[in-house]
């Protein structure tokens, strides 16, 4: 059990090390990378199965009892996040099996990928504030290496923006962790939650938590601190963009859900602020997308707007709303990463990712059109796909709490999202290619990428059709978040479980 709890971190780390040692052997590195990502997926699925049977893994590392040691806790939310991280990692590794281009760069992608996955998984399973900071840094350094991959003027400029603003966010987080320690004397999330829930938190601790939420907001790209995301995500190589789109902002969202539900389980002032921020994020993101004319830049703005939905669920704070946020998180990672992968394949076939220079794909590659339609309609919230259920629950939860205007913003954003998606559809698939049909390239090179997007599209359909069990899982996860017994047990019964 102990090994299983730390496996989500150790599998990518070991894969990374083996990858570095096998550096000269490109084929072997790719195989190792695929095996590592597949193993991570399997461990994630095993963790979800355990969590679904109401087992919560809690391990104290290094033989020190909480709150002195570092706690690793895997509840339903963490288990689901680890599983989905493995799946996205596997899809990216599959897409990265292409053979064109600089072979060293392609090899490096497979190595750095696992550095990123280790950081992401670490952030999902830790129960300690400072440890969360360390995992943020691990995933950050992995993402720095990945976004700069391949070089070039535009890419390096985007990297510069990305590096500076993410470093700033992480520094704010470090400061808030220091302030939390100085005001409460603990860094353990469980103990922190107990202090806050008992109403014994000094004002300085409240301030420190607010500061921490600000840094998570930068990570999650919330209004008004989202500017770095649409300024940098579109410059990276396609599978890198897809990885970032699926996972990175969602680490920020996860951390926000974790901390807010732990310290303020009831609706309060913080939730009111979050509610406004969520609505502004949804609207600004989707309106920003309307002004863009490149596939990935449109999709980048949609990441911002979609994060707003998750924060809406968190802000409403009712059990149904939190469950909606968890469901949204799971659905969104799959859909968003898939749209980026499909955008990459479409750009390769048409020779550009500027909408004006694309077209004709519906005639030449109808399967790609169908594969695009599934996540695109899901993103907009068309039944019976996964996005419909996610939005349905959130709208229902806002109406139940009397926030009809929040529900209105959510629905309006859905309509604008549909408009954006139909813009991509018209320009990329329906319109004739400006240079004629001959310009469209169809070859076998991307077959692994096709496997990745087909698998992710199938998952979207499955989450939509099997929404019942997934929603039950999310509701139970929300229950655990509202009453994180295990987080507190680690403090009150050290060594338990």
């Amino acid at each position, binding site marked *: 059990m102990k090994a299983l709890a730390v496996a989500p971190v150790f599998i990518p780390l070991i894969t990374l090390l083996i990858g570095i040692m096998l550096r000269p052997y490109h084929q072997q590195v790719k195989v190792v990378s695929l095996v590592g990502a597949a193993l991570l997926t399997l461990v994630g699925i095993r963790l979800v199965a355990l969590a679904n049977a109401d087992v919560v893994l809690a391990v104290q590392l290094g033989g020190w009892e909480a709150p002195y040691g570092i706690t690793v806790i895997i509840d339903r939310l963490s288990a689901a996040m680890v599983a989905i991280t493995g799946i996205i990692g596997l899809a990216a590794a599959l897409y990265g099996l292409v053979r064109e281009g600089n072979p060293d760069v392609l090899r490096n992608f497979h190595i750095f990928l696992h550095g990123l996955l280790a950081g992401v998984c670490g952030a999902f399973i830790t129960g300690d504030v400072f440890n969360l900071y360390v995992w943020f840094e691990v995933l950050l350094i992995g993402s720095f*290496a990945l976004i700069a991959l391949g070089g070039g003027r535009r890419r390096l400029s985007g990297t510069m923006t990305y590096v500076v603003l993410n470093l700033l966010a992480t*520094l704010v987080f470090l400061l808030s962790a220091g302030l939390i320690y100085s005001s409460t004397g603990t860094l353990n999330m469980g103990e922190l939650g107990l202090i806050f829930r008992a109403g014994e938190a000094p004002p300085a601790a409240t301030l420190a938590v607010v500061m921490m939420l600000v840094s998570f907001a930068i990570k999650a790209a919330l209004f008004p601190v989202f500017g770095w995301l649409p300024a940098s995500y579109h410059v990276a190589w396609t599978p890198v963009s897809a990885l970032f789109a699926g996972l990175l902002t969602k680490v920020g969202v996860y951390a926000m859900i974790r901390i807010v539900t732990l310290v303020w389980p009831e609706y309060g002032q913080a939730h009111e602020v979050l509610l406004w921020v969520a609505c502004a994020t949804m609207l600004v993101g989707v309106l920003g997308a309307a002004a863009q004319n*490149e596939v990935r830049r449109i999709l980048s703005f949609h990441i911002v707007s979609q994060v707003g939905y998750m924060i809406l669920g968190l802000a409403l704070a009712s059990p149904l709303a939190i469950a909606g946020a968890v469901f949204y998180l799971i659905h969104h990672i799959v859909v968003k990463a898939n749209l980026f992968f499909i955008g990459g394949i479409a750009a390769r076939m048409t020779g550009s990712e500027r909408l004006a220079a694309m077209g004709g794909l519906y005639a030449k590659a109808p399967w790609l059109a169908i594969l695009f339609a599934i996540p695109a309609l899901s993103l907009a919230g068309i039944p019976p796909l996964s996005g419909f259920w996610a939005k349905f629950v959130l709208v229902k939860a806002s109406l139940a709490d009397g926030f009809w205007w929040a529900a209105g913003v959510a629905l309006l954003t859905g309509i604008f999202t549909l408009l954006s998606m139909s813009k991509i559809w018209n320009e990329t698939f329906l319109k004739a290619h400006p240079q004629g049909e001959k310009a469209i390239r169809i070859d076998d090179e991307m077959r692994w990428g096709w496997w990745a997007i087909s698998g992710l599209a199938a998952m979207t359909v499955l989450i939509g059709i099997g929404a019942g069990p997934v929603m039950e899982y999310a509701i139970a996860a929300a229950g655990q978040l509202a009453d994180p017994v295990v987080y507190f047990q680690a403090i009150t019964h050290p060594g338990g479980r």
Partner: protein
Amino acid sequence: MEWLAALTAGGLAGIGMWLLLDRNLIRVVLGVAILGNAINLGVLASGRFAGSEAAFVTATTVPADPANALPQALVLTAIVIGFGLFAFALAVLKSVRESHGVTTTDRVTEITEEPAPDIEEVGLQIHQDDADHHHDAEEVRQ
């Protein structure tokens, strides 16, 4: 002692923020480094400066007046990580400046806003835009 650390951290953070808001990329990166050090000092001060001995407990002796070891461990971690990230930021700065002649934040924004080049999507060609950075190099000299 705490007040001195607080003032120093505050002053450093101020300088760091001031540099961060500059248009010159070198100053921006230096600003991140200085702000990072300000925050490291703040974290160290968060454990208070009580105690006068290293907190080493051996089989025979227990220090009478141990210093708080936790913030030291935290800040050591943060320094190491911060150093690595700073080195990476410098490397990006160097290659952006030397190979592409970009030195200001405005220029960085402009370049990322440029329309996407028609590239072979899979390609990851490294020198896809050698052709147009001579123009930037001209700008630098002026």
